[in-house]
């Protein structure tokens, strides 16, 4: 048994593949988990909530103002009631009684007529960006609301709207747009569903007693580990397709970049998770320990990756820690490719850290793989 043997690797791979196919739990985990999580996390996005409580701060009660308010109501997103003071508006937003406050500036009509493009300030409670995302997105279409009231010359031309909305996302500035969440979701769901499958794979052999036999046979650790990872790469891709398909069909996710590039990058990301799982599996003494290790890494990768909080808003140490996790980079890559149409050059800075991570944990796994029973 000198070096890596492709035949032995294939032997273990075949065995793993049969086991994966026969294990109803794994299958459930593979299909149901990502779908369930996507809908669970994405529920609020999909809900497209309407009739959001909105306060109105206005002094003039002018003609244009009435038109704009009517247009806001017509979108179906805003339930508007007038407020008496700024203080009341602040309180309403803080308590969660109001999700929006519309501030119509004084002398609005005059400014419009003069072509000054006055801004209507929309204060938005962005703690749950998905709740307000669609409502905020609908504002863009409203700048033409005054067209019928205005003389033809002053009507909104693409270049110059008669007035504008300035959305001031409170509490959670980065994630105003819904689209930011789905790419993150893809990464998080993939992390959960791929990390755990391999985390259990080697400890399972130990606990079922099959490890003794496996060790007594001429297979090398790297052959076993690779064979345990490969089926899940295939499965990981199936999950990616499933998630992206749902995200596109249900949540209206745009795909602006190259699908091939996305596939490549996500393949690397999946491999990094599987490698980490295998490492836990070799380091841990039993399945319980292995699961705890996996859970222990899930939380920081949720919190520090930029999925939960805007990455740039975190303290420096947290950003440093966040950079360590593959999910942080994957998130940027997926957002970049899907939303910004990034190419290889743009994602490369986030690609190599994942590769380094994968290599490093694979080394740890090979090193800590026990070839004896003591």
């Amino acid at each position, binding site marked *: 048994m000198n070096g890596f043997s492709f035949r032995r690797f294939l032997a273990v791979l075949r065995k793993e593949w049969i086991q994966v196919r026969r294990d109803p739990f794994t299958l459930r985990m593979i299909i149901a988990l990502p779908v369930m999580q996507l809908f669970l996390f994405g529920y609020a996005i999909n809900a497209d909530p309407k009739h959001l409580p909105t306060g109105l701060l206005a002094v003039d009660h002018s003609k244009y103002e009435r038109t704009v308010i009517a247009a806001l109501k017509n979108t179906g997103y805003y339930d508007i009631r007038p407020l008496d003071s700024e203080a009341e508006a602040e309180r309403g937003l803080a308590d969660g009684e109001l999700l929006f406050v519309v501030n119509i500036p004084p002398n609005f009509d005059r400014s419009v007529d003069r072509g000054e493009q006055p801004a209507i300030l929309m204060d938005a409670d962005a703690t749950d960006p998905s709740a307000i995302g669609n409502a905020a997105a609908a504002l863009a279409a409203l700048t033409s609301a005054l067209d019928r009231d205005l003389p033809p010359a002053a009507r909104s031309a693409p270049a110059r709207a008669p007035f504008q909305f300035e959305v001031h996302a409170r509490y959670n500035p980065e994630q105003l747009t819904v689209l930011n969440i789905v790419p993150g979701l893809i990464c998080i769901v993939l992390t959960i569903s791929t990390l755990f499958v391999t985390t259990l794979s080697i400890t399972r052999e130990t606990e079922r007693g099959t490890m*003794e036999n496996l060790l007594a*046979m*001429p297979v090398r650790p790297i052959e076993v580990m690779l064979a345990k990872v490969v089926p899940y790469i295939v499965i990981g891709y199936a999950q990616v397709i499933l998630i992206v398909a749902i995200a596109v069909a249900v949540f209206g996710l745009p795909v602006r970049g190259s699908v091939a590039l996305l596939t490549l990058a996500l393949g690397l990301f999946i491999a990094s998770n599987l490698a980490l799982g295998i490492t836990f599996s070799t380091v841990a003494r039993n399945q319980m320990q292995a699961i705890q290790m996996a859970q222990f890494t899930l939380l920081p990768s949720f919190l520090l990756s930029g999925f939960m909080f805007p990455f740039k808003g975190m303290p420096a140490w947290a950003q440093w820690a966040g950079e360590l996790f593959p999910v942080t980079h994957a998130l940027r890559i997926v957002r970049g490719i899907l939303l910004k149409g990034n190419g290889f050059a743009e994602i490369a800075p986030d690609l190599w850290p994942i590769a380094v991570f994968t290599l490093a944990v694979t080394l740890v796994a090979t090193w800590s793989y026990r070839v004896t029973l003591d």
Partner: protein
Amino acid sequence: MTADLVIDVRDLHKSYGTRKVVDGLTLAVKAGEICGFLGANGSGKTTTIRMLCGLVRPNGGGGTCLGLDIIRDAPRIRLQVGYMTQRFSFYEDLTVTENLDFVAAVYELDNRREAVKAIIDRMGLADRAGQLAGELSGGWKQRLALAACVLHKPKLLLLDEPTAGVDAKARREFWDLIHDMAADGLTVLVSTHYMDEAARCGRIVYLSDGKLVVQGTPDEVAKGSGLITFEATGPNLDVAARTLRKMPGVESAAVFGSALHIAGMDRAALERAIQSLDGGLAWHEVPPQLEDVFIHLLSQPDRPHA
């Protein structure tokens, strides 16, 4: 090292914590020999076998197996050894054929399919070839395990209680097969708790508390024990056995069918015990059986309880 010694290890030591599990064991097994490995539960049989194929690292001592160093060359030893674990350790969610196919592929056998088919036929597994290993009965699992460990035509078989839970007929076939393979030059080290199996071994090695206590052919072991045994026939043997068991000098008294069998080291004490019975029994001395010897060995006071 002698050239025809397949197993040649000296002064093996293994401790778990402070507990010495194998304590200075020296073992030599010749090519083509069937060596029975006996000893009480926890006496270190499994641990020794694991050290021989490199699955457990000895704390001290060493030696060779098939001429290869048991510590340095463990991977190469594994290619030529068939190890059957005490606990069933094949994949329960794979069928019999799939398990065997996996083993054949891992050993990189040429003509994998034919090899698997041949072993299935030889072991009488054909009817169960498509069944999941986890759904087999205990005895059939053992057959599968044996089939798997001879599949790659090893030079040395290490069998750890291969017939535990196997019915009498299957046990007989199993041993016929082992003898068959030994005739072709295979060397076998087999641990067992069955006396009839010990009797079929060319040589037996008895382990107690991690130390080798007795070894030799079954005959030598029986004769060399210094044990004296008497046999009686007559009525009410069970009552007599109960009385005799309490007498000084009687180490064991047991009824086998129509005969009562007593054993001890002290001839005078045994004869006194026989005399003290009311009679009605016809006594005569018999050569000690292996079983008597092992019961005697197992009940030695220096044997710690494992």
